[in-house]
């Protein structure tokens, strides 16, 4: 059972990580929300990022998506040091984010949301027809039954809104995708659709950070699992090397599996 700060997937041993975050620190006032965390992702790989509430998962991912620049630490993209000061910087590096809240402008329709901040223009005016056409294509990949391209997304179902948020991330040839609780608001059919999508994106060589509370989702989809506890990284493990109980132990006790005693594990079940 190999557990270190960063374990590379065997197949990716010689390759350069798509994203390599080193010793990231973020503080809010006196609270260290992220305290020296290092994490990386390789092409075609899915990293499950798990931890309890307030463990710092979302804050860590927000530094990568440009929503909240880190106070300290280094981010390398394709081996090159990168400065991500705002969402534009992240997008320019091919890093796209699907936020837990979906971050949709509820009063706008699906094409306007998909292209928000990156509109297609022709002759200095918005080309809504072109944006609708692209949106029909990309959402058609996710959900062939999606028909409401002209209504505000406020009126759409949870699954359809999720499709819009995902479409926004994959429309622009993302190379790294951050998904924060992508299935939290979805029914079983829609969840399996998202799972199929994640597998497809992996096969296309996209690196994925999957933030989730659902340990089964994580075991289903991830290649490696990084566990955070109170702003620290407990460890990163290969999925095949651990059991769900051991990962649960890491989440709850904040210790790597080697240091968890049998008694503590038993108490978890007690």
């Amino acid at each position: 059972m190999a557990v270190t700060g960063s374990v590379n997937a065997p197949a990716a041993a010689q390759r350069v990580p798509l994203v390599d975050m080193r010793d990231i620190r973020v503080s809010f006032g006196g609270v260290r929300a992220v305290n020296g965390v290092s994490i990386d992702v390789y092409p075609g790989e899915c990293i499950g990022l798990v931890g309890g509430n307030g463990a710092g998962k979302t804050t860590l991912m927000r530094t990568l998506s440009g929503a909240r620049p880190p106070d300290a630490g280094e981010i390398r993209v394709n081996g090159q040091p990168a400065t991500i000061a705002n969402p534009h910087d992240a997008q320019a590096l091919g890093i796209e984010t699907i936020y837990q809240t979906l971050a949709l402008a509820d009063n706008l329709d699906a094409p306007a949301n998909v292209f928000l901040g990156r509109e297609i223009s022709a002759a200095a005016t918005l080309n809504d027809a072109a944006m609708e056409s692209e949106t029909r294509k990309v959402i058609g990949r996710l959900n062939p039954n999606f028909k409401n391209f002209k209504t505000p997304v406020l009126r759409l179902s949870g699954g359809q809104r999720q499709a819009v948020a995902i479409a926004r991330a994959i429309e622009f040839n993302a190379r790294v995708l951050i998904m924060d609780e992508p299935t939290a608001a979805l029914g079983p059919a829609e969840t399996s659709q998202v799972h199929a999508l994640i597998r497809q994106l992996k096969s296309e060589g996209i690196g994925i950070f999957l933030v989730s509370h659902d340990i089964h989702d994580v075991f289903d989809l991830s290649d490696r699992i990084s566990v955070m506890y109170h702003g620290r990284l407990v460890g990163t493990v290969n999925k095949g090397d651990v059991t769900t109980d051991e990962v649960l132990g890491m989440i709850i006790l904040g210790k790597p599996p080697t240091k968890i005693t049998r008694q503590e594990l038993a108490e978890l079940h007690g």
Partner: protein
Amino acid sequence: MNVPVPEVATAGPSNGIAHTLRSASATVSERLRFLEIDTRMLGMLLALVGIWLGFNLLSGGTFLSPRNLWNLSVQSASIAIMATGMVLIIVSRNIDLSVGSMLGFLGYAMAMLQGEWIPKSLGLGLGEPYTWIVTVIFGLLLGTLIGGLQGVVVAYGRVPSFIVTLGGLLVWRGLIFRFAQGQTIAPLDQNFQMLGGGTVGTRVGALGEWGSWILALLLCAGIAYALVTSRRRRRRYGFPVRPMWAEITVGAVAAAVTLSTVWVFNSYPLPVNVANQYAQEHNIPVPPEGLFISTGIAFPVVLMLLVTLVVTFLATRRRFGRYVYAIGGNPDAAALAGINVRRTIMLAFALMGALAAVSAAVQTARLNAAVTNLGVQNELDVISAAVIGGTSFSGGVGTVPGAILGAVVMQSLRSGMVLLLVDSPTQDIVVGLVLVAAVGLDTFVRSGRR
């Protein structure tokens, strides 16, 4: 024990009627969906028609006379111009309480510029040919500047817009009194006065008969062009298009409304003495029944049309407008999408300032003077117009044409009550109640739909 029987008896048919009504309204709304007409916009239009017919009945036909409608159009124009900008401000979850004071300040500055600040030696000053255009450009720049200044404090200083513009309301008004010392600045340049739609000698601030028809034809051509290009574009991408009958209906109705409006304005003749003087100057014989010279569309209304087109274009066809609506819908999402939220909000306030300058030009030109209380309480009319026109205070919702309609509804109420000799406090009470009722009704209808 007899009670249930009649109940059942009535329940049957009434259910049937309700069902018929429901299916009838379904087909109507289906047709409307084909026409892609905003049902709430349609509701407002119907309300306006109701108000007009009601006042016309009560006033014995005076309300819908060309003379009254012409005056109504001029009175609505300056509020409507500012309401277009207020839509964007409110849509972005802000408010501008300072527009009335900004208007007064800008009107005063423009009057001072043409009367005192620019020297005659430059070929400017009262009565010189370029004075009016220099004044208007100066007003627009100053308006953009002071509106933008408030926007900077709101967007970058993070002071709530309610507070910033409440301060602005006091500051700009105070500055007028400080500089003008309570004096009225008059007269103004004669060309400049034309912007107000008034009469100077034999010159009238309106397009006249042929100018109005030409504008009407241009508008009709514009409508046709817009319909054809949008249809062609949707076709090119293989999207569903409206059935042809719907397309033609929309175009025909829009053209009919445009042409009949111009016909009404052209039916309003110049006053007798102006017409006679005009006839004398141009050696036109005056027929015994009097000379009929059409006034046509007033310049303030032309300005309003121009502003409507420009602001609608900004709101719907440009990134700026898209971002304003996105910020209003979800400020966090807008920021996460990489939108420069602060810059967008600052620009919205700058635009509001420029529009206040346009209205200031119209109002000072109409008065032929800058007075210290110019534009007092205009902010309330402007905000009311936007809100009656469907702009939501929770942000993200509102249209420019709706605000224009709102301004016309408000002014129709006031003008109608003036015709009926209703005193001004009662007018305020009615307008206040209508404002609250309109928003209440809208909220009720919308909560029912969801």
